[in-house]
């Protein structure tokens, strides 16, 4: 076997290179800048500039791109409008997430532990806190995650699929473990996430091996040809395809591959939860779209039972379990599982419409998620002596929030209504285009179930609205909750709220852009 060095077209990779390059620089900054305070500022600056520059580059490439896109690295990656659309989306989520990472409470407290390597509750931890230490490594970690996710969206080869998956997953495992408060919970969440993540990677890799065995290639196009040329269904191909899809469903958080979600969402520092919920789902959906449409398109009939079953199970379980949650972050975790089901609805029958509907759905879902978690970072418990503690995530603590802070509660209500899919919010347009895509290929029974699940899901979103606006602050609890004012978190709330309203009322331009992106991928799929 001879090894030929592939020709690498660097230019189409510019957005990814900017992000990963900035991540490398950020690691150097970790080593050379001593003062924690300066380091934090520099890291924030570098991250935001890099992410915005990458987004700008991706948009410029988008505009200049003609035809079916550029194949890079011997067909391992394809840069086309579909992947660029997802990359811009992930970069937007990354930027907003980074702003949240840097947000601090009025008392100057970050969301992250001062030193990740010390045991919770130990004297070393107290010392580290007193010395004002900070884990500014979170910024390069986030950059690596963003870079990996961006690659994930343009992968057209199973080997690279695995590499990109690991590039973005490993930083996330670490980030989940770094919560400042309730560190055991954070460690538990990270461990579960890591173990199940490793498990899913193994399944994906196993599936890739099967596919290589059956078709002799790891490239999507050649797998597609192998699928097409096989007479009847090759058991090896089918097993491989199912395992690859299952590996990706883990990352999307669909039932029965969802069990890490509630713990990881609850344990992780809230900014990490926000970023992870929005961006991971988007990246995994993008990768699933590409592998399904470019490699497994011929297996539609065989894979549809999997998609239907997982979709229905996710919607039902997510909705029903969310109904009984009393912890806000867990409730949103189960809501995200239900949303994973709604995402899969758009896959029913592999409709062309899914290629433009899903980016929009994920945009609306991600923005509302980032906004909702940003608000959660702002609502704090207060102890009896008046010190502000961690986030008030028990549902009961949100009673009467509408009276304390009408604007913040109003924004939360907006995000919840968008999750529920009420018209004039982005979530409605997202649901509409996703359901329309499914119905165009005869998936209306699935849509009907989705609609019933939406109605049930509305119940727990509305329950929080009731708590915030229609319930009085409980007697004696008037001082138990404090509204924090972090300018960075507020900026995220305002930006996401404006985006959710705009996408709800004038979604035209964005829909247009994504429609453009979908057509090209179809062209490439042939």
């Amino acid at each position, binding site marked *: 076997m001879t090894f030929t060095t592939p020709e690498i077209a660097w230019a189409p990779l510019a957005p990814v290179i900017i992000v990963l390059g900035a991540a490398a620089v950020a690691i150097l900054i970790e080593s050379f800048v001593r003062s924690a305070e300066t380091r934090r500022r520099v890291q924030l600056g570098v991250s935001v500039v890099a992410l915005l520059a990458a987004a700008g580059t991706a948009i410029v490439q988008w505009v200049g791109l003609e035809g079916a896109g550029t194949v890079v690295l011997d067909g391992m990656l394809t840069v086309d409008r579909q992947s660029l659309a997802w990359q811009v989306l992930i970069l937007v989520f990354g930027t907003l997430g980074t702003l949240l990472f840097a947000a601090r409470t009025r008392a100057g407290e970050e969301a992250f532990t001062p030193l990740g390597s010390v045991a919770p509750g130990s004297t070393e931890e107290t010392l580290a806190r007193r010395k004002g230490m900070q884990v500014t490594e979170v910024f390069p970690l986030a950059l690596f995650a963003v870079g990996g996710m961006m690659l994930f969206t343009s992968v057209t080869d199973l080997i690279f699929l695995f590499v990109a998956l690991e590039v973005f997953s490993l930083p996330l495992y670490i980030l989940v473990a770094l919560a400042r408060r309730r560190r055991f919970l954070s460690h538990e969440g990270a461990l579960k996430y890591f173990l199940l993540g490793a498990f899913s990677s193994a399944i994906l890799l196993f599936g890739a091996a099967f596919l290589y065995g059956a078709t002799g290639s790891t490239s999507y196009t050649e797998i597609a040809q192998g699928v097409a040329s096989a007479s009847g269904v090759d058991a090896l191909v089918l097993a491989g395809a199912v395992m690859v899809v299952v590996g990706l469903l883990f990352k999307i958080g669909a039932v029965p591959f969802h069990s890490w979600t509630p713990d990881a969402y609850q344990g992780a520092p809230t900014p990490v939860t926000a970023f992870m919920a929005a961006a991971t789902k988007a990246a995994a959906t993008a990768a699933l779209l590409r592998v399904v449409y470019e490699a497994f398109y011929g297996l539609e009939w065989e894979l549809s039972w999997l998609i239907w079953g997982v979709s229905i199970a996710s919607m039902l379980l997510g909705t029903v379990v969310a109904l009984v949650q009393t912890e806000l972050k867990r409730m949103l975790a189960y809501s995200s599982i239900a949303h994973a089901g709604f995402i899969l609805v758009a896959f029913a029958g592999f409709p062309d419409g899914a290629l433009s509907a899903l980016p929009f759905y994920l945009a609306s879902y991600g923005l509302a998620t980032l906004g909702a978690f940003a608000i959660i970072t702002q609502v704090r418990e207060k102890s009896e002596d008046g010190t502000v503690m961690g986030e008030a995530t028990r549902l009961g603590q949100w009673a009467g929030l509408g009276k304390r802070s009408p604007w913040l509660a109003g924004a939360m209500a907006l995000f919840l209504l968008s999750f529920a899919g009420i018209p004039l919010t982005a979530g409605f347009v997202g*649901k509409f285009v996703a359901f*329309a895509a499914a119905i165009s290929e005869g998936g209306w029974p699935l849509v009907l179930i989705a*609609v019933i699940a939406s109605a049930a899901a*509305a119940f727990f979103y*509305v329950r929080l609205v009731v708590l915030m606006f229609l319930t009085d602050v409980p007697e004696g609890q008037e001082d138990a909750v404090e509204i924090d004012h972090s300018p960075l978190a507020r900026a995220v709330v305002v930006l996401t709220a404006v985006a959710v309203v705009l996408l709800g009322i004038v979604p035209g331009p964005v*829909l*247009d852009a994504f*429609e453009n992106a979908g057509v090209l991928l179809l062209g490439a799929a042939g």
Partner: protein
Amino acid sequence: MFPILSVMVALPALGAVLLWALPGGARARVRELALAITGVELVLAVVLFLQFDTSAAGTIQFSETYAWIPQIGTSWALGVNGIGLLMIVLSALLTPLAILAGWWEDKDPARRTHYLALILLSEAFMVGIFAARDVFLFYVLFEAMLIPLYFLIGSFGGGQRRYAAVKFLLYSLAGGLVMLVGVVALYFQGPGGDQAFLTDNLTGLDMSTTAERLIFLAFFLAFAIKAPMVPVHTWLPTVAETARPGTTALLVAVLDKIGTFGMLTLCVALFPEAAAWAAPVIIGFAVVSVIYGALLAIGQKDMLRLVAFTSVSHFGIMVLGIFAFTQTSIEGAAFYMFNHGLSTGALFFAVGFLIHRYGTADVTAYGGLQRVVPVLAGTFLIIGLSALALPGLSPFVSEIMVLIGAFSVAKVAVIISAVGVVLAALYVLLTYQKVFTGPAPESRKPVMELTRRERVVLWPLIALMLVLGFLPGIAIDTLRAPSADIVATVPTEEAGQ
């Protein structure tokens, strides 16, 4: 041409925003401001009515079409025919009266502002829905309207209001989401393109029988919940009992008409064959609504619940008229939608005035008011008689039109429904008797006579019912042509029984 319908949607919506944006100090005269905005809206509605060309009542007039989200084929398309026109006039008429009727509520200016802004927002949605000529636009407004209503019910009112608000929202949302499936499915039956959702482009489609029936049912369920028909009516009494009388008046008198309006202008007009197919069953449910609503009304102690159940009964008659598919019955149903708004609106306002005096809606707390406040008693009696369709008042005309029109196709249904009309006499007169005649309860406070403001609310409604009772042609002329169009689309086979 002047986009009068868009202005009529925008004016109250902007008014609501203005109210919310007012600084605390400027909120002292917020009621006058809200009244002025709705007053201008009423003037616009009157202009609309006068400008409307009655000789061409069946065609869409004041039409406006702007591209909204061409990617999914939806437009900001407004326009009215005779039916939509009357409903818009009704909305514009009742909103200022509801504000006047609730003048005394809320001492806190912030709360008052919030309430009035929500009322204005609801008015914007009502006008938008009655004018919408695009199915997607209709749906969006239909669902988005739930939000102001939810807060109107949940934030203002008594007792179990949170429960009522959630019940209302979930019922409506469930119906709405099922309708969404229908809306999406309809898109794929239609011609597609930038204006795929215009009702003109969706009328007379060549659909498979199964598709047409399923989509019809998806739409019908949403409208039956809104209307409300038995067995999906149970949210209404709960809401009526807890919400403010002003809110309930708007809700039952205008907003619930969206249900029957939707049946008439979307369900029947877009899916005539499926409508004819389902008509016998729907008429069955309508008759059950008529009788069941009337029977339950007789059993109520709470006057607000009572009026709510009478409305369930009356909505049954409207649905009967719509699905009998004769010229007279549809005209009658559309006319009844307007008259029921006048009569029930007035009834809820009047009950609200009683509650203001006594602090309770429980009939057993009342008695012997006739001698103390004769004007109030007389006004109440006339309004009550309008609800039982006394000849000379306009509800009589419409009710008799429905019954006569439907008789040729659904004899049994009409005969049973006529029993409902007799029952109506029972519940109205029994209530009047308990509240206004007989001995006064001990421990009675001194009672105010009908104030001037309250007369301004109730008497115009009575006057209008009298005028339309003797000269129904004013309204019916605008309904004749649209009804004829609807009758013409429905297959001519025997629809009833």
